[in-house]
């Protein structure tokens, strides 16, 4: 048992936190948020320079060969800063599929360009009717013969940062029925390929996304990642790793929202005293602290279990963490607003933005109610 960061990990933390402190305060972020493309290409280059974009990829593919702990560190820092960049879709979701299922050719083509920041990816998996069921896919991939091109048809929704992505990794059904566990495959699709249409929009937390429709989109057989029909276990691993990162991001966001709240309690005066001198508010701030520390512990737990080989053990740990952290994030965000009073519900105040992000994190890849039910169903 060891809670220390290695010197390399400490270097990543220090470097990234310094960068974000200098260049990603609330005012900088506002500029990115309201500008195009809704995030900072400059920061993206800096992340690349720091090596963050190649972090989880094998060194042989052009990455840094790091693991979930490094991803946790980075995600937590992004959570503190409410960073808007497409790290999750490019590096963790689509990047994860590429890492786990990509052919050597695909990896050697794409990983260096992801790592240097010149290639953006998105993961087009979720469909409207699926809710949180990862197996629920109706998009189809068909081909007349084993060597022919694939033709993709279907609709994907809530595809994070698909608006700016150069390539999409699309899940599609090559066999089976709507919610069958087998029969899924992953394809690398150019975002501008004929038949790909994207409806872009802003999400509640300012992040960008798009709905993607695929109408007779043709891709060649070397666009296939892994083996056709067996993609679901890959998708589940990728999603579990990403949930661990989302938990860390939430912990970063909660921690910062709590810090801002405690600072506010010290300076805001009412009835002739700092409101932080009122015991009921002090205890509220303490309850937030306890919840954050518990969430931090579970974020670490998820990180440790993110690459657990046994899928059931892994999924249960990940769901345990997500169910707690999702709920804790919301509660901490709500109390941060409440303790700020009126100012807390304005767009000028940072805590509201943390709350919006924390709310989206709860929803993304399954909300706390969903994951609690998963744990309850699968526990011994």
């Amino acid at each position, binding site marked *: 048992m060891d809670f220390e960061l290695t010197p390399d990990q400490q270097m990543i933390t220090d470097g990234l936190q310094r960068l974000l402190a200098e260049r990603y305060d609330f005012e900088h972020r506002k500029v990115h948020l309201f500008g195009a493309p809704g995030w900072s290409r400059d920061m993206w280059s800096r992340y690349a320079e720091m090596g963050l974009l190649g972090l989880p990829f094998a060194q042989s593919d052009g990455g840094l060969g790091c693991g979930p702990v490094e991803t946790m560190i980075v995600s937590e820092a992004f959570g503190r800063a409410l960073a808007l960049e497409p790290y999750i879709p490019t590096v963790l979701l689509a990047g994860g599929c590429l890492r786990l299922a990509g052919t050597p050719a695909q990896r050697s083509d794409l990983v260096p360009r992801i790592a240097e920041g010149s290639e953006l990816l998105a993961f087009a998996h*979720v469909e*409207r*009717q*699926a*809710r*949180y*069921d990862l197996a*629920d896919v109706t998009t189809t991939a068909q081909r007349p013969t084993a060597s022919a091109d694939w033709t993709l048809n279907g609709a994907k*929704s*809530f595809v994070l940062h698909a608006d700016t992505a150069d390539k999409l990794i699309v899940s599609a059904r090559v066999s089976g029925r709507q*919610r069958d566990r087998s029969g899924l495959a992953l394809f690398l699709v150019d975002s501008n390929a004929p038949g790909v249409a994207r409806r872009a*929009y*802003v*999400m*509640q937390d*300012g992040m960008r*996304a798009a709905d993607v429709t695929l109408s007779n989109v043709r891709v060649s057989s070397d666009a296939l990642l892994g083996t056709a029909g067996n993609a679901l276990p890959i998708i589940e691993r990728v999603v579990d790793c990403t949930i661990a990162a989302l938990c860390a991001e939430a912990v970063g966001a909660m921690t910062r929202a709590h810090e801002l709240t405690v600072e506010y309690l010290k300076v805001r*005066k*009412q*009835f*002739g005293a700092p*409101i932080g001198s*009122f015991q*009921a*508010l002090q205890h509220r701030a303490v309850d937030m602290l306890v919840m954050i520390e518990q969430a931090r512990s579970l974020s670490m737990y998820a990180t440790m279990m993110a690459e657990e080989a046994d899928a059931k053990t892994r999924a249960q740990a990940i769901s345990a963490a997500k169910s707690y952290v999702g709920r804790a994030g*919301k509660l901490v965000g*709500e109390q941060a*607003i*409440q303790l700020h*009073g*009126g100012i*807390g*519900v*304005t*767009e*000028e105040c940072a805590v*509201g933005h943390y*709350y*919006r992000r924390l*709310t*989206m994190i709860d*929803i993304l890849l399954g*909300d706390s*109610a969903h994951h*609690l*039910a998963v744990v309850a169903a699968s526990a011994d």
Partner: protein
Amino acid sequence: MDLRFTADELAFRDEVQQFFRIAVPADIRRKCVLGQRLSKPELQRWTRILFEKGWATPAWDPEWGGTGWSPVQQYIFKEELHMAPAPEPLSFNVNMIGPVLIAFGTDEQKRRFLPSIARLDYWFCQGFSEPGAGSDLASLRTSARLEGDHYMVNGQKLWTSTAHHAEWCFLLVRTDPNAKKQQGITYLLMDMRSPGITVRPIVTIDGHHETNEMFLENVRIPVGNRIGEENKGWDYAKYLLGNERSGIARVGISKMRVRRAKELARNIDAGGRPLSEDRGFRERVALLEIELKALEITQMRLISAAAPAGKPDPKSSILKMKGSELQQAAAQLLLETAGYEAMEFDRDFLRGAHSTPSPHDWALTIAPNHYFARHVSIVGGSNEIQRNILAKTVLGL
């Protein structure tokens, strides 16, 4: 003791339901169902429909436009309005400045203002809070100096919601800087066209512009626009607190949200079955519905416990606290129901700007309204302040 409505009350409810069914314009009803915000002309249109019916200001003294309904009838009316759903009349006009004018205004003031307030010809906003005076409202510093037949007003107000729509503002100002905090405050009516007023928008967490900050620089307000006596304004403002017992819990709004969540859940697939059949979802719905049933009865108990007119019942703080918590919980239930669907942000849709309906419209206001629901435990005396009040007045601590 009988918790059921009497036959007369049931008949009244039918009449009210029937009216709402017919009288709410289809476009306005649709906005309410979808959780969109109304424009000024829309709310005016609806208020005038109520006014024509004689139901724009039920709780007012019948002499000045009230209906003379019993507390139970007034409760039924509000519930049915929320459940219709129909827009709530402007609270600043109907629940705040109207009753204050009726209680403390001169006959001339009443004649001049009340009809326009009831018809929403005059839209009032509230100038109470200030940057340094929130929960501790009595520490407000906006000053008013009597100069001949008018007050000269200087200062800054915060959270002046709908000030950008308003023709008038009811305003608390400090007229005696040397008096004790609650004394030395005066209650004025300010014409929003007066020179020296600057209204700056504040965008809230839902992405919407509804509230403002307001700067007052040498604004002249005629003495005739003063309510009651100088330096007694705090009493008039306090008159409202705890006085508005019916409807303060807004049970109808929460019930409507829960109803909508249940309806939506029937058509949402969760792992091959409707979400509405999921045990966890059903238990969360049940928990909320049970608490709402309880609050409904608690509210009726407080309403029917005869309290002297104008004397605030401190227990109404229970309604405010619990009501706001349940509004938030109901908004959370809707959010949980929508899941991913709630993630798309569309500021224009929230304002009701889109004209062409889409199949996913239904989810677009859910997250913003859920975010904005955080404000209900803050405004009008935060829930912490309500707990202080209850501890002191009811428990004697």
